[in-house]
């Protein structure tokens, strides 16, 4: 298998009739084979110029198409690419694909094969491919943005600065072994400290971006939680604008959670209504309660609802943080007397934007004046704030960065105490192994290169 295999696929999606579909051919030296299928002379096709042509099955015209020719290396994946813009009827697309594959040197592409070739031909790097994947499969604007950012190499840039800081600190250590005579103790120490600090700052910053960018950002969940009959399902329906959940005056109507997509300012959320929390002998209900608590634990946005007029035990909420606490029903009759609740309500009542243990509180009587806009504001505010941290959401990156943070933390704990520079360097190399998983392998030559370029070395 020495020659590049030529591949073909419909790049604009199959299975649905659309106005225009794009069939892409990738490989090398295939124009001559494909020439009989087109009315224009393929061998003289102009690069990057739209060319109208008929598709021929023998002498029969089967479609009229626009061709775009991207000769290597200036194409998406570095190979010769021919795009056939044809009518997007599913049967039509299939017929053209069959036609192109009828030459012996052409086959249907495997999933991702175009991009794989882009990776191999260095048209893209791994993080760009990851970005493309994110972009193509994004289901919200944020994922779309990060996909684009990866594709443009921005995220890679910030990893590059990590790599640079790593090389700088490693160089600073190496200076102490091989070149101490050249730079002297004072410059050595100063450099070691400075390079350590800038590496530490970069790792802390990256880690922050990871923490704020938990998986929740890709599929952010809003969980409604609270005692039975507090009005969770009512709020659920109000937020959605439909009567999706069954609402009755009977406590314990919702026994397991139900969920729906909810769009706020074009961001997609998953809204979950959960079983009311109470002591119960009902096995199914108690299982539902357990699930509700678990959901709340991992949720992006937690809304606690309760009726201030009811007497509740708040034990289950004691250790939980909420983003929003809603007092449903009228507060007029609420005279206090519930200690646990009183403690949580010491903050002034009203919409708050500060981070507190109980989170912003607003008092809403869902039946009288449903301030849905206020609730939506709170949710999108939190979401936007997280986005402003530039979170990292690709799981490979998250894992790597967490590992880097962990090993660097160990290194940090000995950095100021360990007298033996060789031990320090050895410990640091374990950080290096983790960093290389994210940014690629750093060789001894890279480090020496850095030293020679930045320090006056040599007797």
């Amino acid at each position, binding site marked *: *298998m*020495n*020659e*590049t*295999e030529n591949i073909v696929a419909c790049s604009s999606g199959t299975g649905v009739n659309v106005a225009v579909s794009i069939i892409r051919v990738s490989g090398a030296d295939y124009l001559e084979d494909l020439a009989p299928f087109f009315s224009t002379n393929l061998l003289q096709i102009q690069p990057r110029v739209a060319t109208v042509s008929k598709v021929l099955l023998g002498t029969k015209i089967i479609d009229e198409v626009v061709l775009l020719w991207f000769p290597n290396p200036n194409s998406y994946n570095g190979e010769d690419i021919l795009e056939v813009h044809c009518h997007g009827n599913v049967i039509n697309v299939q017929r053209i694909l069959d036609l192109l594959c009828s030459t012996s040197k052409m086959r249907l592409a495997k999933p991702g094969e175009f991009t794989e070739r882009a*990776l*191999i*031909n*260095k048209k893209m*790097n*791994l993080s760009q491919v990851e970005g493309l994947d994110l972009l193509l499969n994004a289901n919200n604007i944020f994922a779309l943005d990060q996909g684009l950012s990866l594709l443009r190499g921005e995220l890679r840039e910030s990893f590059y600065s990590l790599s640079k800081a790593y090389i700088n600190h490693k160089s600073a250590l*190496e200076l*102490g*072994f*091989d*070149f*101490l*005579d*050249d730079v002297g103790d004072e410059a050595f120490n100063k450099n070691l400290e400075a390079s350590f600090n800038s590496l530490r700052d970069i790792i802390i910053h990256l880690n922050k971006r990871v923490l704020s960018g938990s998986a929740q950002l890709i599929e952010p969940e809003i969980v409604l939680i609270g005692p039975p009959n507090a009005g969770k399902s009512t709020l659920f329906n109000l937020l959605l604008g439909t009567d999706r959940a069954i609402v009755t005056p009977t406590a314990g109507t919702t026994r397991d959670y139900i969920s729906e997509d909810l769009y706020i300012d074009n961001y997609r959320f998953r809204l979950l209504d959960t079983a009311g929390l109470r002591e119960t002998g009902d096995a199914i209900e108690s299982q539902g309660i357990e699930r509700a608590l678990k959901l709340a634990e991992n949720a992006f946005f937690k809304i606690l609802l309760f009726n201030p007029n009811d007497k509740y035990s708040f034990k289950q909420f004691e250790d939980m943080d909420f983003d929003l606490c809603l007092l449903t029903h009228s507060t007029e009759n609420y005279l206090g007397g519930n200690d646990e609740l009183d403690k949580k309500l010491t903050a002034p009542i009203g919409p708050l934007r500060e981070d507190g243990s109980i989170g912003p509180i607003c008092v809403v009587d869902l039946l009288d004046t449903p301030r849905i806009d206020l609730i939506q504001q709170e949710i999108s505010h939190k979401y936007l704030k997280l986005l402003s941290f530039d979170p990292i959401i690709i799981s490979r990156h998250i894992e790597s960065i967490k590992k880097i943070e962990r090993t660097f933390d160990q290194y940090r704990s000995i950095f100021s*105490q*360990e*007298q*033996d*520079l*060789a*031990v*320090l*360097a*050895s*410990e640091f*190399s*374990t950080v290096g*192994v983790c960093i290389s998983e994210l940014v*690629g*392998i750093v*060789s*001894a*030559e890279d*480090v*020496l290169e850095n030293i*020679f370029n930045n320090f*006056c*070395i*040599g*007797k």
Partner: protein
Amino acid sequence: MKSFDIVIIGGGHAGVEAANIACQFNNLKVAILTLPGVPLASAPCNPAIGGVGKGQVVRELDHLGGLMGKAADLAGIQYRTLNESKGFAVQSTRIQIDKEAYPKAVGNMLGKIKNLSIIREKVCSISKAETFEINTSENRYYAKKLILTVGTFLKGKLHCGQETREGGRIDAQPVGDLGSIFQDVKLNKKRFKTGTPPRLDINSIDVRKMEAQPSDPNVETMHVLHGTSERFQPQRSCFLTYTNSDTMQVIRSNKENSPMFNGQIEGTGARYCPSIEDKAYRYPDKDIHHVFVEPEGIDSKTVYPSGISSSLPKEIQLQMVKSIKGLEAACILTPGYAVEYDVVDTTMLNKCLALKSEPNLYFAGQVNGTSGYEEAAGQGYIAGVNAALSLLDREPLVLNRNDSYIGVMIEDLISNLRDEPYRLFTARSENRLYIREDNTALRMREYRKRLCLDLDIDKYLDRFQADYMFYMELLGRVSFEPDSEILAHWSITADTKIKIFDVLRLSQINPLLFLEFYFQQIQFVISPRLLRCLAISIKYSGYIQKAEIANAKVHKLDSRSIDWKNLVDSDNISFECKQRIQHIQPETFGQLRRIEGIRQATLSAVAGQYY
């Protein structure tokens, strides 16, 4: 007409090690062919052996039965441990040598070898039929194996100001280029350049104005069969002084006179060993640079001012030297000069340093683009021992990069084309905590054993290993109950018994001092070399283990053998990568990884196949 098994051309540090080890196989007839008038293993540049990373190489050679350590001791006039405060793993021995005594010591040792001939004739031509035919100005010789250790003599060209002449060294006659001798040996496209400072008259300098660096009597001798702190020469101090703004001004205002900067020299020098011109022009803000003033011998009239290597015209060199504190009245006896020379493309060599296309021809030393006597000697040993083993139809001796600096160097050399002279740095090793001076015996014993020789060094290695095992087991087992005074003195906190092994690993403990103390307590007498090896090995055991685990994945993958031919045929690899792979012909993933310019995608693809 004379026939030899092995002929070595060049009697420098590489050549003499090659000859010495080959001759240890008694049945082989070996000859060194060297230029008349040039002493064996002379030191034309720095009068010192060892240094960071290099000290480890000298000890590795010594334990492998080499010459260098022994000669360095016999000629040693100042001993120092470098990096003393930076941790045991990176401490290295450096010995200042007497320039007369060193070649004499080597000459004496080689002179006693019965199966070695030293022939002082200039080689005129070499041809290869069944065997190599070497024509000198006077005779014709035949050799089954040929080792070229010709240093800087390949098309060597000397520069001192505007004066240039052919030659590899200021005091020796020139030889021709390799091209006229061998058609199929490829040279590195770049010519290399090195330089040396002017030599000063010892009576014209004032050392009272400089900082003295006396010899350290506690540094262990290089050769293990010498007494640990034995000294064979009277000891001398080196002196430290500095350049200043006047010095740099002289150089900066004479840029047009510098062969390095006016285009006269095309070769590439090493960035880690810059001339004083380099320093002046590349770091215009820095005027103060170290100058180590090193005596070149006990009775020598000359000193070596390390740090001011230069190829400026003589009179400017003198002006520059005189601006330095303590050198105001200095006389230059020999001016500094630069030499440009051809080096071979080392990626054409295999792990035995033989040419892949002609496995009976070996290259070692500076001709391979390395710098330093130690690097040259290490290569000479590898070429010599493998030429011998090959003649005896035995397995080659390849040192692993995980347990020796020689192994690091050989692999680095053959897996990459260099664009500047190669020097060993500890940074080049992935396993620095283990490749130390103190445990060289443990590291080299296995290799030496494979040679199946039974010399004094072999007996020493066996004994060292046995003792080490015995004491290691003992220290891992025994505990002691320290009284409060001992606890306080060593700042240890302990309720009852503590294992010695665990005490040695405490961060606040100097393992050397503590182990010495412990053996005194239990009244054991143990050799200083063994004590050192035990103490440091235990101290680092935890860290080494940890680093091994962290690197295990990389190492495991690195040692996987790969079929480069397969890669070249593969259609998943870019054309450019294929070319590099074809050129280097890597045998393991590690070698592939170290080839410059191999793409991450290629590595991922290959790693995927072999995981």
